[in-house]
């Protein structure tokens, strides 16, 4: 706390009132840390039995049959991984190129139409996109020759568009942060616009682009309702190969959403679902922590207004 300019000492009541308010504000700030800790502790409390009571060999086995009391997480981990990889393959090129287009190619008037369009995409509830994936997109994919329209690929496609707003807006900021002089310098020595972007702007914006992709991945891993509706929810181990993207899968998030409503509180199944939540929490925690380390959360956001 800054104490460079203490208020006048002649107003004791005002000072006490202010101390109280400032105390409340400090508590609010600290509460954010407490909430993260509480979320972790509650997941741990309810989920720990899954890791204590089930032999690790079975827990990471490839059979998920809760009815028979077999809780192998592998099919769910594979499902989440497949859907995530597919979404990344689709969303990263689309998102980065769209950001380049917005930042470097699009005329001003078009940018003012397209940027709100991204906010609209971000504002569509995932259940609405999931619903459209279920009633409209899945039949299209089935007609295209797949055995079923509810596949890992359908989920990837849906999640790719759900993560595009994150990827586009963060990478656009990263491109925008590259100093004008870099572009002017490259263009002045005769580089074309594309050479400038490819050799100068993109490398300079690299760390921001990596963060954009990481946060996009974080969104994809955690998305629930979309994948619940369109991936077919079959907890099988797909045969390894490119064809596995076109089989039904089941993700970790969808498993929690689909099964938590039916389990008895305190049962092993209940603990396992919380255990999956704990794994998801840890994955996103690590992804966000890494992304934040890359930006330097502490250093980058210098105070603009706080130097009183």
């Amino acid at each position, binding site marked *: 706390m800054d104490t460079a*300019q203490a208020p006048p000492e002649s*107003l004791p009541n005002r*000072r006490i009132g*202010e101390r109280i308010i*400032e105390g409340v504000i*400090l508590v*609010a*700030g600290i509460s*954010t*840390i407490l*909430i*993260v800790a509480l*979320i972790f502790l*509650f*997941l741990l*409390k*309810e989920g720990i039995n899954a890791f204590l009571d089930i032999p690790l060999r079975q827990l990471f086995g490839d059979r998920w049959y809760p009815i028979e009391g077999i809780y192998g997480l592998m099919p769910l981990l594979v499902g989440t991984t497949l859907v995530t990889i597919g979404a990344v393959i689709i969303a990263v090129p*689309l998102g980065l*190129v*769209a950001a*380049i*287009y917005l930042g470097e*190619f699009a005329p001003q008037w078009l940018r003012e139409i*397209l940027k709100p*369009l991204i906010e609209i995409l971000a*504002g*569509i*509830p995932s*259940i*609405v996109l999931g*619903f*459209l994936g*279920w*009633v409209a997109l899945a039949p299209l994919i089935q007609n295209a020759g797949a055995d079923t329209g509810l596949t890992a690929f359908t989920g990837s496609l849906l999640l790719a568009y759900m993560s595009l707003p994150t990827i586009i807006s963060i990478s656009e900021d990263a491109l925008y942060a590259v100093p004008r002089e870099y572009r002017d310098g490259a263009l002045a020595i005769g580089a*074309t*616009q*594309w*050479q400038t*972007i490819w050799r100068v702007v993109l490398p300079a914006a690299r760390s921001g682009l990596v963060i954009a992709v990481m946060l996009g991945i*974080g969104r994809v891993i*955690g998305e*629930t309702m979309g994948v619940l509706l369109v991936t077919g929810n079959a907890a099988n181990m797909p045969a390894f190969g490119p064809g596995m993207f076109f089989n039904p899968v089941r993700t970790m*998030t969808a498993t*929690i*959403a689909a099964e938590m409503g039916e389990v008895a509180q305190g049962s092993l199944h209940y603990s396992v*679902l919380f255990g999956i*939540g704990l794994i*998801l*929490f840890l994955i*996103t*925690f690590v992804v*966000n922590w890494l992304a934040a380390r890359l930006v330097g*959360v*502490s250093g980058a*956001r210098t*105070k*603009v*207004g*706080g130097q*009183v």
Partner: protein
Amino acid sequence: MSRQQTQRLASVLITLTAVLVFVPVIVVIVYLIWQGIGAISWEFLTQPPRNGMTEGGIWPAILGTLILTMGTALVSMPFSIATAIYLAEYAGDNRLTRTIRMAIVNLAGIPSIVYGLFGLGAFVLAAGFGTSILAGSLTLGIMTMPVVISTAEEAINSVPQQFRTVSLSLGASKWQTIWHQVLPHALPGIITGMILGLSRAAGETAPILFTVAAFYVPTLPTSIFDQTMALPYHLYVIATQVPGMPLKIQYGTALVLLLITLTMTLIATVVRTAVRRRRDW
């Protein structure tokens, strides 16, 4: 290939890819309106469902979503704005501040279904609120905090330093300066962030699955300890759990939910643009 040809090719490919990104968004919106608009009538918006949900309206679900959104605002707003004031005006460059920022980044990244689990464990079971509007609002409120905190902090930071200097030099205390000078100027930005956060909360399904949402309740909720129907969950159940559900009603429900969240996004965008235009510093 000469570099001019590369330039031309790159520019064409980039434009085509941009088309791939933006056109589907327009298609989705137009398609949903086209399919859903026929279902929307006064009765659809104001009546409860009838005949196993295959007839009638979706009023209880709309009302439930509005109540939950208000509950979310009540939980999220005081905490988030206080935290934003702390970060913008009081926090020094120290370990505590860095930890708080790290916590906010992590809160923003936690999957919504994990918030749902937390709400179930903490509010429904441990606190004993049961499956209730209170438990759902607390869960959604915590989920929206990161968005509201970061936009509010940005709004507070964008108030020019001179405003504070002048106020302090006239003898106002630090808190008086914040309350009378900084917050009024930051208010539109704070409201923008709040509405954006709430529009997200209004559309969320996963956090309310186990904390508040009911498949069907014959009466409207009368207390914060009641369950309620909510639009996102209603859409999920009628699309997947009710056999023989008319498609028209499904599309109509999806359209109503979309219109509610998009209206909120739109209001937030308009407020922000208007404020930026009018800003006189």
